[in-house]
Structures are given as C-alpha cells and as structure tokens.
C-alpha cells in the first residue's frame, strides 16, 4: 500500500494534469469518455511516443536529436521506395532501419568526435535527411499498398490494438536498456559526468555514438509504425515531431542536465500532447484557436511542472 503511494508520488506532475484535462474534456463532450476514444488516443500517440523514447535517450546524454522527425519520414519513404523496386517489404523495413542506425551513427560521430553541440549537428542532419527523402520521392508521397500496414495499424491482440503492443514493447526495450544494462548506465553517465566515464575506462565517444545509433534504431521503428498508419512514403510526415518529443520528454521529468530522468515519465508527456489535440477536436474547438490552446496548455504544464520541482527542492 505504502509502496503504491510512493510510486504515485514519484509520478511526474504532468500525470496529475493529465487526469484533470481528461475530466474537463469528459464534461465538455459526451463522445469523449469512451473506450473507443481512449483506444483511439493510444493509437494516435504511438508514433510520437516511440520517437519520444528515442529523444529521451538522447536528452539523458545532455543532447537533443533534431533529426529524429526527418529519420521517421525517411523510413516511410525508404521502405516504400525499396518495396517498389521489388525488395520484399519486410526486407525493406530492415534495410530502412539499418539506414537510420547509420544516420544515428553519423550524428553520434559528428557530435562526439567533432565536438559540435548536438542541437546544431542534428539540425544539419535533419536538412540532409529531409533532402534525401525528397529526392527519393521527387517530393510527392509514394504509395505501395500492403496488408501488413493494416495488420499493424488496425488489428488487435487480446483486445489491445497492435500499435499499442508495439509501443509497449519499445517501452520495455528502452526501459531495460536504461535500467538494466551497462549501456544504459553509460547513457546516464554521458549526461551526468563524462570525465567520470573516461576515468572509469569507458569511452564517452563510443557510447555517445552508440546512443545516437540506438535512437536512430528506435526512430526507425517509429518510422515503420508511421508508415503503417499513413500507408505511404511521406517525405515530410514527421517534421516537427522531434521538438514535440523534446517537450514530451521534459514534461515527463527528464532533465536537460545531468542525466536525470527516464522513459516512464515520457509516456505522460506524449499522452498530454495527444490527449489535448484529440480532446480539442472532439469537443469541436475551431481549428484557428487550436494551436494557441495546445501551446498554452503545454506551456502551462511545463511551468506548473517546473514550479512543483523547484518547490519540492526547497
């Protein structure tokens, strides 16, 4: 019992705001509080959620990866591009993910060996990857129908949508990596004290590269999921997700400094953003007000969160 209480207390403040927002929306619209809508929300949250998992790993190393959104778009394009060339869909998926791992590796190498701040290095990479996606598609989307998409995006297993299962799987993967492996320890070390890692005989450079590559891998999976949702190669589908992922990660209690935080909180951050968007649509707020409202809610959540954190420290 006490265990539950402390666990509840350990949840980031954003989780409480989440409850509040759900209550408000439920009161505002009869269509809101339904099982099917929550399923809907979970499905909608999945791609961003997975990207945010990747971003969390990067933020734990005191970095940000602005190329994640571009990587996701790139994967949707690459898979379809290859499939159209006759490569089996499954093999295309593997190749595309390997390519994002490669992109991540390049990112990591520039950041670690070139001493460039991740923000700017990955911004450069974002441009490059975007370009590649556009060149591959000549700018438009490419269509390659397959039943696989629907299997991933629309089927359920034990009453839970397949998307959500995949998301859960990715969560477990990242959680285990961060919590139960040496690599995860090193990720925290990269954010917390790089010197200490080096002195303990761990190569910060190698681990940084590995982290970006790992993030690339996760982004690759997010790309596959996104492909299944939009059923076509979309060169710009995920632009801006990297920033939303940063916001979600920070809302979830991961800090831009010192390797503090983890992937659990990130879930709440992503849910907040998704739930607000969904709710505003369901209660039918005019779209020209939506951006201002979503932005204000995210801003408020971040401020409240910061104030609570500062208070609790004092």
């Amino acid at each position, binding site marked *: 019992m006490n265990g539950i209480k402390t666990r509840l207390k350990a949840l980031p403040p954003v989780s409480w705001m989440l409850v509040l927002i759900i209550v408000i929306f439920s009161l505002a619209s009869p269509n809101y509080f339904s099982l099917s809508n929550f399923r809907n929300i979970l499905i909608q949250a999945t791609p961003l959620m997975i990207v945010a998992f990747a971003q969390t790993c990067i933020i734990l190393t005191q970095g940000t990866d602005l190329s994640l959104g571009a990587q996701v778009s790139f994967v949707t394009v690459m898979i379809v591009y290859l499939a159209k060339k006759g490569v089996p869909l499954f093999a295309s998926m593997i190749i595309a993910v390997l390519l994002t791992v490669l992109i991540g590796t390049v990112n990591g190498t520039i950041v670690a060996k070139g001493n460039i701040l991740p923000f700017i290095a990955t911004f450069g990479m974002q441009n490059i990857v975007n370009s590649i996606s556009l060149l591959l598609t000549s700018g438009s989307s490419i269509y390659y129908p397959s039943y696989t998409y629907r299997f991933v995006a629309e089927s359920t297993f034990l009453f839970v949508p397949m998307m959500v299962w995949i998301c859960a799987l990715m969560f477990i993967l990242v959680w*285990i990596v961060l*919590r*139960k*492996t*040496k690599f*995860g*320890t090193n990720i*925290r*070390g990269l*954010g*917390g*004290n790089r*010197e*200490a*890692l*080096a*002195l*303990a*005989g*761990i*190569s910060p450079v190698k681990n940084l590269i590995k982290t970006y590559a790992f993030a690339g891998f996760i982004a690759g999976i997010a790309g596959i999921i996104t492909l299944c949702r939009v059923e076509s190669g979309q060169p710009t589908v995920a632009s801006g997700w990297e920033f939303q992922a940063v916001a979600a990660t920070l809302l979830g209690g991961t800090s831009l400094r*010192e*390797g*503090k*935080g983890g992937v659990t909180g990130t879930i709440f951050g992503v849910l907040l953003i998704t739930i607000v968007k969904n709710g505003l649509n369901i209660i039918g707020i005019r779209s020209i007000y939506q951006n201002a409202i979503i932005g204000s809610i995210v801003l408020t959540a971040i401020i409240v969160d910061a104030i609570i954190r500062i208070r609790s420290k*004092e």
Partner: protein
Amino acid sequence: MGKTILTAVGITKVFPGMKALDKVDFDLRAGEVHILVGENGAGKSTLAKVILGVYKQDEGEVFFEGEKMEVSGTKDAIAKGIVAVYQEFTLIPYLSVAQNIFLNREFRTKLGFIDHKKMESEAEALLKSLNCEYINIKAPVKQLSVAEQQMVEIAKALSYKPRVIIFDEPTSALSDREAESLFAQIHNLKKKGIGIVYVSHRMEEFPKIGDRITVLRDGKKIATIGINDCTDHELITMMVGRDVSQVYVRTQNEHKGEALRTEDLSDYSGKVKGVSIVLNRGEIVGIAGLVGSGRTELAQLIYGINPIKTGKVYVNGREMMPKSPVNAVKHGIGLVSEDRKKYGLALGEAIAFNAISVSLKKIFPKFFMNKRKIYDIAKQNVDQLRIVTTSVHKQCKFLSGGNQQKVVLAKWLNFNPQIIIFDEPTRGIDVGAKMEIYKLMDRLAAEGKAILMISSELPEVIGMSDRIYVMHEGRMVDECKRGEFTAEQIGSRMLGLGVGGR
C-alpha cells in the same frame, strides 16, 4: 616497508604554453604512503594522471612491477590495479551510490542484465568498512552531501581491490570525523601491502599517515625524504623555494567603529538560526565551525544570495535589506566565495575581464567602455598579486587553483569594498599562495576594511582573527578575542560541547 612496485622515470608533460612536469622521477613501495606536496600548479595532479594513463606523457616512462605501462586511457592502470580518488568530482549524479561504485564493473545476472541487488549489498559492505553505513546505497549520489559523495569516491576506489591507490586531496571536503575513518582505512591498506600516493595541502595530516614525502615545485622534483627527516618549516621552504619564517601575518591595528552588524538572522532552509554578529572596521573576524554548520549560508544571507527569513542587517549602523548581491555590492560588501570555479570566476573568460567584473560600472560609469583600460588594470593586478600567467588575455581555466583564487581577489581589490567576506579563502591552494593571501588580508584590515573570514582550518582562524565566532548547527555558540581560547577549546565548542560562553 615492501619493495618498490611503481616507478616513474623522467616524466615530462607539456601543456599548451607550459611545462607541467619536467623530468620527474617518482617511486612507490608496497605498503607505504608516499605524500606528494607542492604549491598549486606544481604538477601533483598531473603526475598522478600520468601514472594513471589519463594524460600521455611527452617523455619518460612508468613501470609497474618492472613492466612498462601503456598509455591508453585508464584501462591499463585499472587492469593492473592502479586506481585513484581524483581531485575533481567523478561521480555520475543520477546513478545510485551502488551503480557509481561499480561503474564499468557492474555485476550481471545470468541474462546479462545488471544485478542491482548484488551491487547494492556489495556497496553496503564497502561503505560499512569506511564507517559510512548511514549513506543510502540506492539514492542517486546527487542527493548526498559533498562529504558523503567524497566517501563514495573513496569507496569506489577501494572497490577495485587496488594494488596502488592515489588520493588527490581526499580530505578537502571531509570533516574531521570522516577524515579519521579515511586514515584508519589507509592504515589497513598499508598493512595489506598496498602502495598509496597521497596528495594534500594539509600538513597536519602528514605525520598521521605518511612514510615518505616528495616535493614538487614548478613541475620539477625538489626532493624525496622520509616523513621524520624534515620539519614543517623545511618542507614549506622547499615547496615555495624561499624561506618563510612565519605563516600567519597579523599586524595589530585599531578597530575604528562598527561596519557590519546582524541581528537575529535566520534563513528559510533552517541552516542559520538567529545569528547576531558584529564586525568592525580594521578587524578580521573569524568564524569557526564544522562543515555544514551554516557558515556559508550566513555569508550568503548577508550578501543577498538567499532571502532572509527573519532578522536584520546593518551596514555602518544603517539598516539594509540584502535583497540581492547587487544591493550588497552597492553597500560595499564583497564576498570571496568558497567555490571559485562555480561562483568566483568565468573560467572561459580572460583574466582581465574577470578582474574587472565587479567594478565594471565603477570604472566605466558612462556605459561605454575601453578595453585598453581594462587590460591596464588587469596588468597591474597580475603584477601586484604575482599571478603566474603569460598574459592577461589568458582564459582563467588555464590557471592553477591558487592563481585562480588570486584573480578572484583581484576582482574585489579593484572594486575596493569596505566589508569583505572570505569564505574558505585558502581552500585547495598551496602555502605560498596562502601566505600571500594572509598578507593581503592583513593589509586590507590595516587599511580599515572590515573582514569576515570563514575557514575550516582552525589554525588559520586562530592565526589570523582578532575575534572568533564559533558556529554550531546554525547558531553562534561562542565568541572569543584573540588568544582567549586554545585550539582545543574552540574545537570542542565547534562540536557543540561546553556550550556556554556568553
């Protein structure tokens, strides 16, 4: 004492623009404590890091048990059992104590995952052997106090079951009690035949643990001698390269009226409880106390860093509300903080810019500035305080600790405040620099400035102060004039014993 296990021959290490080590020889025997002393920037840490493989030497070689060591990061050293407690913080803030101790040597379960349980129980045992069972093994080290963190660092080093262990100023963040348990541990290690290199500026520690001493000066080895073969005085002379007859300089002078007074001062964190002190012009007042007794917080309250909960501060008899350092500085108060890297200096900026950072508006009241003038002022500071540097354009991060502290002092001298609070002004700096700082404080007092000095080195407090306040757990528990009490008496007051006085 055992046979020689580690030898360094003719080590030279050049950093851009300077020679940190110049053909230094060094050797360590099994079961001995070999103390390394020298002024700031003498090259002690550098030597330690060359031995560990952190730095690649430009000349010379290091042998461990007759075998030449490779320089490839710390890997080789760790494999051979050569480890260190570094001068700088080497923990990872949001990993648990246990994870930090076993960093890169994590226990794994059969599946290859980290075995947190096993690491925690091992860590617990280790800390117990250091009398630190009160440290929470599962907590992120970020939540520990500085002293506790230092003990974790030590535990981490010991966990390697080392053959050679290098301590680089391990006690500078520790209280006496913790230092004692470290010394006990060192004696244990000695008995087990482990070689220990011990770097420290605290000379009173040497006889307690040391066997031999090597003195470095300006990157050169001056001598290696047995601990009983020289006096403190001789040692200091070797370190600074000139005769120093007297460490503490204090010319008596008249006190010319009250400069600063606090009444019943308390802060929100509860670390300062109803403190009332008085500080006169021309006087040096020392505050003695244990680490954590709230002295720094008191200084910060007066200086306006933290908000005051209750109480008042008077400057020259007039009440002032220390809302922020801006306000304090306006009232002529200066603070030399205890952590120069964090609060004292912009390490990435040139010496010149640091030196004028407080007096910017005073030198250039008309908004526009003139860089020539800044450089001229800084050049004067460098000459006057004997700051060792190639130019005033040099970034402060390339200076040694003592020289950095002098830049901090320059910054206040240029502003010329009437009240100066020194918080641990000589922490981690060498005797030569220390003495120069004492001289400076004495001069300032003679000029009629009021000086409040917080220090954890009791001899320093006693040697320099005209009056001493003793602080214990946030309260001023005692006050005495110069010569009224012995070190033992003050020490027991600091511990909260024999509270009375007035």
